[in-house]
């Protein structure tokens, strides 16, 4: 999985011949010189130390989440759980009079709905903007790009009022709609470019053979633009799953909170004391799905990030 990610990086950067030219590149140039002057052992030491720094917080999270009640408060903290227990996770069922698993379900529903809707809406619109232009389609694309420049943090006050007018405030549906809207520009951008890159003759052939537009879209075009679809889905998934600010503002009932917002309740302990074990268990619940998906699909995620950023 690791080399596929980098293969994509190289391809994005230098085209199909990147592999061979990259080999040369590594040996020449300023960077190559610096590297050659640095012994391989030193390189390994530096890289491994950095890897430890990057993985250490995640290790601490797991370690604390698995510690029992007595061990959690020990000073100085123990290096690893001496009697590992899942108690912190079961405790999440009743924290501050709250079932965090219900909030987990909220997060799952909002994230899945936002991801599916964003993919569908972005695919349809991306196809239209690339292949079935209509008067004003350029304006639509321009406005969508403008949303990149104005983040939703800046318009959150009236957004709250619009949702209130529509009766969608303090509602998971409202939050989903907001997530779809703010992930749409990126998805639109990716899908429009994906469709524009498909050779026109392919679709023409299907249409000449008597396919309707939608049949051709589903059976001919969609398989080809699948990488774009997966990238859009991944970016929306991570953005919605991790989103905090809008969820904090737009949801007011505790049982409607998404996971990241719920964690603020776990930290505000009843008698000023925080249950750090439960908090880290909650953090683990939030982080582990992201890591799993990243490890499985990082090729699409990384190439999507690079394409979106560099084009």
């Amino acid at each position, binding site marked *: 999985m*690791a080399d596929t990610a*980098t293969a994509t*990086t190289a391809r994005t*950067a230098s085209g199909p011949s*990147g592999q061979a030219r990259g080999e*040369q590149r*590594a040996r020449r140039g*300023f*960077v190559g010189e610096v*590297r050659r002057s640095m012994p391989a052992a030193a390189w*390994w030491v530096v*890289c491994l130390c950095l*890897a430890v720094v*990057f993985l250490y*917080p995640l290790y*601490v999270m797991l370690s*604390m989440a698995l510690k029992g009640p007595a061990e*959690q408060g020990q*000073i*100085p*903290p123990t290096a690893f759980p001496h009697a590992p227990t899942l108690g912190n996770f079961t405790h999440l069922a009743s924290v501050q009079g709250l079932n965090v698993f219900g909030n987990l379900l909220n997060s799952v529903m909002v994230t899945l709905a936002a991801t599916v809707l964003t993919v569908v*809406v972005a695919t*349809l*619109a991306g*196809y*239209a903007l*690339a292949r*079935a232009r*209509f*008067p004003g*389609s350029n304006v639509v694309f321009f*406005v969508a790009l403008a*949303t990149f*420049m*104005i983040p939703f*943090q800046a*318009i959150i006050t*009236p957004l709250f009022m*619009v949702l209130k007018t529509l009766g969608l405030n303090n509602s998971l549906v409202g939050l989903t709609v907001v997530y779809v*809207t703010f992930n*749409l*520009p990126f998805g639109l951008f990716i899908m429009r470019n994906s469709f524009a890159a498909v050779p*026109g003759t392919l*679709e*023409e052939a299907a249409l*000449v053979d008597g396919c309707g537009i939608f049949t051709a879209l589903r059976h001919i075009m969609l398989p080809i633009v699948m990488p774009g679809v997966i990238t859009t889905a991944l970016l929306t998934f*991570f953005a919605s799953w*991790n989103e*905090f600010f809008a969820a*904090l*503002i737009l949801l007011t009932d505790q049982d409607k909170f998404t996971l990241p917002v719920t964690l*603020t309740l776990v930290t505000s302990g009843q008698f000023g004391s925080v249950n750090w074990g439960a*908090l880290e268990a*909650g*953090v683990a619940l939030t*982080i582990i799905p992201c890591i799993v*998906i990243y490890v499985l699909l*990082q090729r699409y995620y990384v190439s999507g990030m*690079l394409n979106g*950023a560099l084009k």
Partner: protein
Amino acid sequence: MTSVVDLTPGSAGAPGTPGAPLAAARRGMRVSRRRALVGLAMATPAIVLIAAFFLVPLVMTFWISLHNWPLLGRHRFVGLDNYARAVADPGFRTAMKFTLVYTVVITPVLFLIGLGMALLVRRRVRAARVFQSIYFMPVCIGLAAGSFLWLYLGQARIGPLFDLLRRVGIVPADGNIFAGTWGALLMVIGMVTWKVVGLQMLLLLSGLNSIPDDVVEAARIDGASRWQGFRHITVPLLRPTLALVLVFSVAGSLLAFDQFFIMTNGGPANSTITAVYAIYRTSFISFKLGYGAALSVFLMVVLAVVSAVQMLLLRNTDHG
């Protein structure tokens, strides 16, 4: 067959080829018009969403900012009063100043570490790829989750990072990292660096890989030193990437909220309130929606300036 001509993306608006028979051209026109209608229908959900939840709130921001607009009760037109108040508001000025300080401190930190890591892992060996994947991993973790994690890491007495710093002698045993403005700020910077520097590394890496070696080599043959080659060939060619990386961290830092809300709560003594945090408190704690909207407009102006500077930097490269 005419429809074939019309289906190529560029010619959707201009059906028919000059030599085609009239009837075929007319049929082509019909097909292309139907296609445009289908296209419009397909784009409609996106248009509705963007209009209702982006364009309307955007216009409303300016409109509300001209009013005294409480959450409940009547609103009253006050002209530019909110703006005048914002300029004179010591709380908002402190928040803006703190946001700028945070941005100015964290941007070079992220950039230099990201560049160092990019140079480090720019090797075509399997191990380098594995290290890239590890360093990039925290990018997929949410800022909020990362903040909760680091809040525990640095927690007085029980936090493992606190314990480490205590053993090294940086923090006294009875100290509290989050009690001082700089301590709290450094913890936030540590967390954000851990979380986003992998992205900076990756962007710089792909920028470095896109520079042809021949160019740098030619300079070396002409007698340039390694450093000169880097300084005068690599860096200028890397400029689009540099602009992108800088704008990423500048825009991200100007909008900082989650990490301060969770890790410092704006404290100690409101010294780590950011611009977005100030807007949040104005609109959703004090419920002064009109004033909050005016503060949002200020934020938008700052972000627009940053975007404009980005465009300028990117455009200059074409001629430089």
